[in-house]
């Protein structure tokens, strides 16, 4: 298989050398096992940054800078105020609209408030959704997301 190189996003130059030979052997077994909504990631990061007591992994260190930045950024998005119950209700409520999982994810992450946004997030919106359905989506978005 092809070797994978790694680089730190924030740095100016790639630091080759120590540890590189180990990295070259790394393989991506599955690039996409599933999409993750901002809310789900925020839940995971809350555990990493010790906001909640239960952890998936032992707390071995303080959170990495990226984890903190990610957590701070996501808290300011709609995900910061979402709850698992409401998201489950939302997903059930939009089932009859036949949205793709990607569209559903986009809606959950963005929490649209205008018609224009719905048209942007749902492909071929005019053909697939009636005006009443767009209104309904906006109401669901306001109530549950």
């Amino acid at each position, binding site marked *: 298989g092809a070797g994978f*190189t790694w680089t730190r996003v924030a740095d100016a130059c790639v630091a080759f050398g120590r540890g590189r030979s180990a990295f070259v*052997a790394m393989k991506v*077994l599955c*690039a996409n096992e599933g999409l993750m909504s901002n809310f789900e990631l925020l839940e995971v990061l809350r555990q990493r940054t010790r906001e909640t007591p239960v952890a998936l*992994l032992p707390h071995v260190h303080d959170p990495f800078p990226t984890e903190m*930045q*990610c957590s701070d950024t996501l808290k300011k998005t709609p995900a910061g105020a979402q709850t698992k119950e409401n998201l489950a209700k939302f997903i059930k409520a939009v089932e009859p609209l036949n949205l793709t999982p990607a569209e559903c994810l*986009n809606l959950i992450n963005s929490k649209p408030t205008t018609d224009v946004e719905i048209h*942007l997030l749902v492909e071929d919106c005019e053909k697939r959704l009636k005006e009443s359905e767009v209104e309904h989506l906006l109401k669901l978005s306001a109530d549950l997301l």
Partner: protein
Amino acid sequence: MFQIARLEDPNVKILPENLGKPRLTAITQVIEDLYVDKVVKDLGLVVTLYEIVSIEGGTVYPGEGSAHFHVVFKAVVFRPFVGEVLEGVLKKSDRKGLYVHLGFFDDVFVPEHMLQEPSAFDEEEQLWVWNYQNSRMFMDLDEPVRFRCSSVRFPEQPRNAKALDGNSPQLGRTYEGNFAPMVIVGDVNADGLGLTSWWQQETE
């Protein structure tokens, strides 16, 4: 924005001084140091470790005291899908286009040909302007911008600084002159995209 990737590292090395720790703790530490906040080429930016799936091995090779393990683990990777609509902050503009930051990721570039039509670059203000129905809508810096992910690129690392300088933003040259191993190319060429202030619902 995020997906879960399953990765395999057949050669995770635990140094002798760490062999006293519980195995899971030591391995988690090494994996996180190696992968978190790094860009895996053609995959994305590893944001955090999700779970360790399996650990095998513990081989000690002659001549050294470290133990080597074969680990399969899942990581959360930042990688927007094509067509995903995201919101960031406009940090810089120049003739080539817009540079948008996402807070934890700074290399989003919107090339000038993917801006709302018709747009023009105002040299005096050094800002892009959308000429919409006879009003000039300035794309001010530090404003929230909604854009659509057009492609995700993993440019090749150039051999030296001089080669980097000649590259376009899509090839990984940031406006500060650094190398970006992952670049998101966006477009704002549709209703609802661009500055979020342009599309806010007017109360009736």
